[in-house]
């Protein structure tokens, strides 16, 4: 595999320049990654997303060029922090380890080779720490400069939300080019007791991009994590959300909209670990697919032994605008407690022609009527957002990108 060869020599350089505090753990991660190799679609977890398509690519470590956008509080370019705000504590990983805002534990190896690879490489990163009881709205621009070909980048964002903090983060992932880059990102959220975190992702379209992303969330007692995730199909896009409801009363809302057209691909895997009693989760993902695109939704809910009074709701709905678009949707429930409520449902359909006729019978043109119907379809996912600026921006982006039907 060509890809490993190049990554290996890049790793040696990276490790030589990294701080001593993480050297051991990074090497550990890299060895684990090498041992596991790049997964193939023979593995169930990667059934509909085959990362081994990159195996013959020689990716070079992405460099960080200057990039500015005043509208954002924090700017990260190819994984490196380039703009901070005085408003809150923002630091790179090296600095944060030094000040003990984060510990090495966050980089412990996992059973996911891409998380391990990010652990091995993400020396810069961005750590955002919110103190107890603060109330903040911040915006993060996560720039992928893919104007050069065959680069690999490892963005890493770590968010610590103190006890009873109330936070809304708008993260825009912006691609500057359209070259065949591999983006392997990891985002960590650590929610203290009673913390409320809203995370809005606007992940723009980018041709020829291979995007693998993992959002890892750990929640303490009575905390709430609300994710509004908008994704565009790419050459390959695999986005995992792993939520650990570790203590009683924790709640998460996972809401997502995905769009794909042409031959693009978008895969979401969500895993919700109900580890303690009285935790609740509510998940709603909707997709609109056209052309020859492929969508995947795999929603796993794992209710641990003793996690009584769990209440988990999951729904995945899909609109197919063409005969050649494909969606694979699968709920996965694993329940080891006996007093729980878990519901799940998946639908695949077309736009409601009766509704379109009704709108047209009032004088609205077909194209506009279709847009109104799709807007309504998506509106449900975004309802309940706290950050109205982010909501408007998100809706606008989605409407702009809704694929054309056949």
């Amino acid at each position, binding site marked *: 595999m060509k890809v490993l060869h190049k990554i290996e020599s890049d790793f040696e350089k990276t490790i030589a320049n990294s701080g001593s505090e993480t050297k051991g753990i990074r090497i550990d991660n890299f060895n684990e990654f090498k041992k596991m190799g790049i997964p193939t679609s023979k593995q169930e977890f990667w059934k509909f997303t085959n990362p081994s398509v990159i195996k013959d690519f020689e990716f070079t470590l992405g460099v960080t060029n200057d990039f500015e956008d005043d509208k954002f509080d924090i700017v990260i370019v190819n994984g490196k922090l380039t703009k901070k705000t005085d408003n809150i504590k923002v630091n790179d990983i090296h600095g944060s380890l030094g000040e003990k805002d984060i510990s090495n534990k966050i980089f412990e190896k996992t059973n996911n080779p891409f998380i391990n690879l990010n652990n091995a490489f993400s020396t810069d990163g961005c750590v955002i720490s919110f103190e107890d009881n603060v109330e903040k709205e911040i915006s993060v621009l996560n720039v992928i400069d893919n104007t050069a070909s065959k680069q690999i980048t490892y963005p890493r964002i770590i968010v610590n939300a103190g006890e009873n903090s109330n936070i809304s983060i708008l993260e825009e992932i912006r691609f500057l080019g359209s070259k065949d880059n591999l983006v392997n990102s990891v985002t960590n959220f650590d929610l203290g007791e009673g913390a409320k975190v809203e995370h809005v992702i606007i992940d723009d379209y980018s041709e020829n991009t291979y995007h693998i992303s993992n959002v890892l969330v750990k929640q303490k007692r009575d905390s709430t994590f609300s994710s509004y995730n908008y994704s565009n199909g790419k050459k390959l896009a695999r986005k995992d959300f792993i939520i650990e409801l570790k203590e009683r009363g924790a709640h998460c809302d996972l809401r997502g909209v995905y769009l794909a057209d042409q031959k693009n691909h978008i895969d979401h895997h969500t895993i919700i670990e109900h580890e303690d009693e009285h935790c609740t989760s509510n998940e709603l993902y909707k997709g609109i697919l056209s052309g020859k695109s492929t969508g995947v939704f795999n929603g796993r809910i794992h209710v641990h032994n003793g996690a009584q009074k769990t209440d988990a709701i999951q729904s995945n709905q899909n609109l197919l605008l063409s005969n050649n678009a494909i969606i694979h949707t699968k709920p996965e429930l694993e329940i080891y407690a006996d007093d729980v409520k878990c519901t799940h449902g998946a639908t695949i359909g077309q736009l*409601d022609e*009766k*509704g379109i*006729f*009704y*709108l*047209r*019978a*009032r*004088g*609205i*043109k*077909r194209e*506009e*009527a279709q847009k*109104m*119907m799709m*807007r*309504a*379809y998506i*509106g*449900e996912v975004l309802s309940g957002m706290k950050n109205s600026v982010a909501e408007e921006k998100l809706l606008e982006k989605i409407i702009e990108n809704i694929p054309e039907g056949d």
Partner: protein
Amino acid sequence: MLKIENLHASVEEISILNGINLEIKAGETHAIMGPNGSGKSTLAQVIAGHEDYEVEKGSIEYFGEDLLELDVDERACEGIFLAFQYPVELPGVNNTYFLKSALNAQRKHRGEDDIDAMDFMDIISDKIKLLNLKESLLKRPVNEGFSGGEKKRNEIFQMAVLEPKLALLDETDSGLDIDALKIVANGVNAMKSPERSTLVVTHYQRLLNYIVPDFVHVLVNGKIVKSGDKNLALELEEKGYEEVIKEANE
């Protein structure tokens, strides 16, 4: 205004209309009555421009132009309004937003600017009183969670806002209690003008006590078998369709 000649239409190769002739002049109210499956609703749908129906023969002229050349939204913009027998629920589409989009689409078609927001609200609050609808329905998604009566009144409310030239009322009376029926009829009558025509499709004579037609036509097997004035509706009520059809055939 509307001139239908020898109209034949089918759906999925089953012929439903078998030679309809009908002329509606400006300001007139016509009622189409007939037994189940006679093609009453199909006629309304074909005039409105539903694409599921195939027009096989005949013509429809509207103000001297070929109506069949126009798509459903173009017909609406030209002033044809279909009050649906089964109004469609549109989850997530706000009722006010929907009405404003419809009104502006029609204004755009006429070369007018979008309606001023304040003017729009004035029209809305004026017309909603006419139909005795709760203002809160405006903030709800179109028809979602509306009662049967509210849905029908909402249709006439839309008609009052859009001010069509030709209104097609497709069994607007079905599912209405007597009070709601009066409200709906009042709404329709309030809009009566020498320029506006109405085609009422109904099973029962009851509605025609309130919306008084100038002409009544009996439709059987996709053909108008008998036409008359409002007394024909009373006759139908009294004798039933079978008797009237038999007489017509003699």
